[in-house]
């Protein structure tokens, strides 16, 4: 769990020598390497595996992760679950810079792949499209669609960088595409911007206002430095702007966009959306598949309206346009609607109170909550059922499971 130390180790060794030669003084960020020497706090056990001496640091890193998850489950607010997201990737000259190893674009491509898979896992009803900016012109790399493989394959083929970047062209292109989608969908753009400038044919402020009127939520993740125009764009459209410090930070920032964002209040109208729940075709039945245009045997789904065969779900029926889903796909988004309350930390005053009968084991995994010295260790408590959990269960429950085992193990009348 030494993410902090690991980050510094990556860039520290090589760059120290260079900077010492080029300018005699050490910059502030370099002083952290020489002063703190985080690599010295590591220790090896007899198998040669690394383990940190400092348990406090471990606890703190867990605690920080918990705070991160706390902010996302803070309030019950309306969220956009059917999302149409365009990922705009800047393939200008600046993306081939090597301050991210091996190059910015390689890091971007790797994490966009992870992001697309996580996005479709958390939002199975949503669709993604990819736009690239190269030589000052924006191209649509993949159309908006629901299949993660097609986006990832297309992206991995086209990673050459050249020319300038143009924010306005990208926004114009995306605006044109997103205006065609149905009104119940939430329109979003995620721009991964490496350049420090933008070469625009006209007034970008007009484009930003156009995006704002079209209810498109633009977010930017910068890889170089903070730019006013990106910040302005995000503020106007209600998105988030962040600048990545290094590779792991970039991964954290991009994965923050996977869970559904809060819906913009005046734009989120409640609608009835027609969806079909197809039955699985019997094994051994032969029909012509509408997505591949060839005959296939068994294992497909029949559209309830027009009886056309589709290969996989979720998809849109090619013949009649009905959105086809299965109920587990919808169910995957339910935890956003019914989030569980964050657990409270058990304070040290409570732990030391001899009158309180402390639970010895974590309710979820039965791990002992006592330190090796038989003193109470760190624990959290659910505010509703008052059961104690260990820190690892806390993270697992809030990040993956979304159920409190304690609350579910009590019958509510």
């Amino acid at each position, binding site marked *: 769990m030494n993410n902090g130390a690991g980050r510094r180790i990556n860039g520290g060794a090589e760059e120290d020598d260079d900077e010492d030669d080029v300018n005699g003084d050490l910059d502030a960020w370099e002083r952290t390497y020489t002063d703190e020497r985080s690599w010295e706090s590591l220790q090896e056990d007899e*198998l040669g595996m690394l383990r940190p001496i400092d348990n406090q640091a471990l606890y703190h890193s867990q605690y920080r992760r918990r705070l991160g998850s706390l902010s996302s489950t803070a309030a019950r607010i309306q969220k956009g679950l059917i999302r149409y997201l365009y990922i705009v990737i800047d393939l200008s000259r600046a993306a081939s810079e090597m301050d991210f190893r091996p190059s910015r674009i390689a890091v971007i491509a790797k994490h966009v792949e992870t992001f697309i898979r996580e996005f479709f896992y958390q939002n199975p009803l949503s669709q993604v499209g990819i736009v690239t900016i190269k030589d000052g012109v924006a191209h649509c790399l993949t159309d908006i669609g629901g299949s993660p493989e097609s986006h990832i394959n297309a992206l991995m083929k086209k990673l050459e960088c050249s020319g300038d970047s143009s924010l306005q062209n990208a926004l114009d292109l995306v605006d044109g595409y997103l205006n065609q989608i149905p009104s119940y969908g939430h329109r979003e753009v995620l721009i991964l911007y490496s350049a420090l400038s933008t070469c625009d044919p006209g007034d970008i402020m007009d484009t930003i206002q156009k995006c704002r009127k079209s209810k498109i939520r633009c977010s930017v993740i910068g890889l170089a430095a903070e730019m006013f125009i990106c910040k302005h764009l995000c503020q106007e459209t209600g998105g988030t702007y962040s600048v990545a410090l290094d590779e792991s930070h970039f991964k954290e920032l991009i994965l923050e966009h996977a869970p559904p964002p809060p819906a913009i209040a005046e734009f989120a109208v409640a*609608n009835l*959306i027609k*969806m079909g729940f197809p039955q*699985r075709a019997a094994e051994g039945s032969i029909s012509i598949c509408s997505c591949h245009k060839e005959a296939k045997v068994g294992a497909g789904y029949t559209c309830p309206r027009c009886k056309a065969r589709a290969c996989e779900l979720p998809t849109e029926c090619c013949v009649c346009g009905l959105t086809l889903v299965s109920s587990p796909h919808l169910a995957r988004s339910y935890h956003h*609607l019914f989030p569980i309350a964050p657990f409270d930390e058990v304070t040290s005053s409570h732990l030391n109170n001899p009158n309180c009968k402390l639970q010895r084991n974590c309710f*979820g995994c039965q791990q002992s909550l006592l330190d090796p010295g038989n003193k109470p260790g760190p624990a959290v408590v659910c505010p509703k059922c008052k059961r104690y959990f260990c820190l690892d269960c806390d993270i697992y429950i809030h990040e993956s499971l*979304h159920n409190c*085992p304690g609350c579910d193990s009590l019958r509510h009348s």
Partner: protein
Amino acid sequence: MASAPSKLYADDVSLVVVLLDTNPFFWSSSSLSFSQFLSHVLAFLNAILTLNQLNQVVVIATGYNSCDYVFDSSSDLNRSFENGRMPVMCSSLLQKLEEFLIKDEQLSKEEPEGKIKSSLFSGSLSMALCYIQRVFRSGALHPHPRILCLQGSPDGPEQYVAIMNAIFSAQRSSVPIDSCYLGSQNSAFLQQASYITAGVHHKPQNLDGLFQYLMTIFATDLHSRSFIHLPKPVGVDFRASSVFGQAQSEAASASDKKRKTPET
């Protein structure tokens, strides 16, 4: 610092987390009595422990008012390899189960008639998943975990969201959920759970032979399942429970308000 693990975890070492349904409303009306059921299950659990010396079994009781752990084969109390005999696990399991049942009954409150008397399946499933995460965290060498649900109670629609969350989390961690349904109707939740997580679902036709069903279908470890013909899912019931009807009053301000008109 503990010594390096000298055990070698081969492919066929399993950790089976058994969710035992102890709902008194179900067992009072079942053709199989609870004590007969326990004798089948105890023999099955002993058999699993015999299949491989490193196999582990954990039992969680799913009650009507509460859920709790009743047995863990890897805890020190249950390990007694004296004279090469099998660990004696029946007495501790039965004792803890009895304590659990007494406590569960004491928690009963007056319920209105006509409600579906379902057990707290989502609670025990969540606890099982937390335990399995602990096993994953314990290091690179660990047995392959799976969950076996021995349920007879009907599905409780109020648990739909919680059960689906648990199923998706299990799918993400690649933990199969096997289910053996002992009741009279069909359980859509168990069918979905086994289908989505690539587990095995079966509803035995003759409960007197429950031990044989358990041994032939559910005792197989995960690695061997690729060679063995196990019951395949036919016609999984995917109908979503009417969760929005119940939860609408709670979550009226929180949902995206998209509703579906199922066309089947």
